[in-house]
């Protein structure tokens, strides 16, 4: 029996790439917007690109906010990707202030427009950037980053960045123009990746591989 990964389909694009990457790692993908399937999922992925408000609205219209919260409390593996990760936090400041799922305490804020040196830099942060251990991160070897080495590059594209309230919820950071931005967040069974593992070559595939094995 192949492991099953349930991917939430809430009207936001790019599900094909996520599905394909997970299938590549030997799992079967179920795309769904069904409350029941989410409740019964073995492993749940919340993907997403685009604006925060639209994403939350997509979930709300399908009445998926409560089912996702309940799933998250069940202790089963959960992975939010990009916008899906940002929605795991309490609040976002993108185009106004919008409530998130509130799975991990924290806010989503705009990436500062200047780097550590005070000089302006390009926004969005687009491209391949290396993962580094966040200051209070737990050991990667017991997480979905098991096969990732410090410095391995993954693909980012974002203008907003999640800022968890508790430093120990940051598992990996990336450094953009001298600024440490949260790249992977973790709270128990809940994971979020700001970058796109489905677009990050072998490093990204290794993260899905570990997620598929997680239980």
């Amino acid at each position: 029996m192949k492991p099953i990964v349930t991917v939430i389909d809430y009207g936001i694009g790019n599900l094909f790439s996520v599905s394909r990457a997970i299938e590549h790692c030997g799992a079967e993908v179920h795309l769904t917007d069904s409350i029941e399937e989410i409740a019964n999922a073995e492993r749940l992925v919340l993907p997403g690109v685009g604006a925060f408000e639209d994403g939350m609205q997509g979930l709300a219209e399908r009445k998926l906010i409560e089912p996702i919260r309940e799933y998250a409390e069940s202790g089963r593996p959960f992975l939010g990707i990009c916008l899906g990760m940002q929605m795991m936090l309490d609040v976002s400041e993108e185009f106004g202030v919008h409530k998130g799922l509130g799975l991990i305490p924290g806010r989503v804020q705009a990436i500062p427009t200047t780097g550590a040196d005070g000089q302006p830099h390009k926004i969005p942060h687009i491209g391949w950037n290396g993962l580094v251990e966040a200051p209070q991160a737990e050991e990667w070897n017991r997480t979905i980053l098991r096969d990732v080495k410090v410095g391995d590059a993954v693909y980012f594209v974002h203008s907003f960045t999640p800022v968890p309230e508790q430093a120990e919820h940051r598992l990996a950071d990336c450094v953009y123009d001298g600024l440490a931005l949260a790249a992977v967040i973790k709270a128990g069974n809940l994971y979020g990746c700001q970058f796109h593992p489905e677009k990050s070559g072998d490093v990204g595939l290794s993260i899905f591989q570990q997620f598929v094995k997680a239980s």
Partner: protein
Amino acid sequence: MPNLRLIARLDIKGPNLIKGIHLEGLRVVGDPQTFSKRYYEAGVDELIYMDIVASLYGRNNLTEIVRHTARNVFVPLTVGGGVRSTDDVKELLRAGADKVAINTAAIQRPELITEVSRRFGSQCMVLSIEAKRLASGKWEAYTDNGRERTGFDVIEWVQRGQELGAGEILLTSIDQEGTRKGFDVALTRAVSDAVTIPVIASGGMGRFEDLAEVVQTGHADAVAMADVLHYDRLNLQDIRTQARAAGLMVRQL
């Protein structure tokens, strides 16, 4: 700065990867899947697919090719050519594209930029510019692979595009495209310095030094390479090694 992105650009007509000279004379190079897979395995940072006849027919015909590519290639894929509406964008994203590059339809109806970026995120909205040098030292934006003038000044247009929500600029020099004589460095620099969003320089790469120049002097954030890769005049590993030696930051593989 983030790592310089090394991008392979595949211009596609029907089922074929083609190469163009000044975006006019076309020659079939081969099957796009073969090339995209090869580039992925060689560590390319991103891919761009351009349906170069799409605007003639009014639609993008790359959905099937995109779907096939996304099965085996796990790096970002930008698709352009004939994208006219948010529905077109949705179809390409659903097929596995990550971003769309829009030129003609954005010129005709600039609000499309805002619609796409609001609905799918600005990271998805790549404003594609075909720039031609004018005697005045400025550049004019063209459409339809350099055939149609628009009267738009490139610098004014990219600034407006950024305000409207574009997340990235794909900047193709019509003058340099297919010449192998190097990028239009002055153009790239003028555009890159006029906006805060990343700029992909495209058109004219013949040797490694061209890349270094358009990044160091032209301030490009990414470089799109076409026939220099298709004909194996340079390969990605060598480009990476040389980039590092020249002090350019590239992805560590």
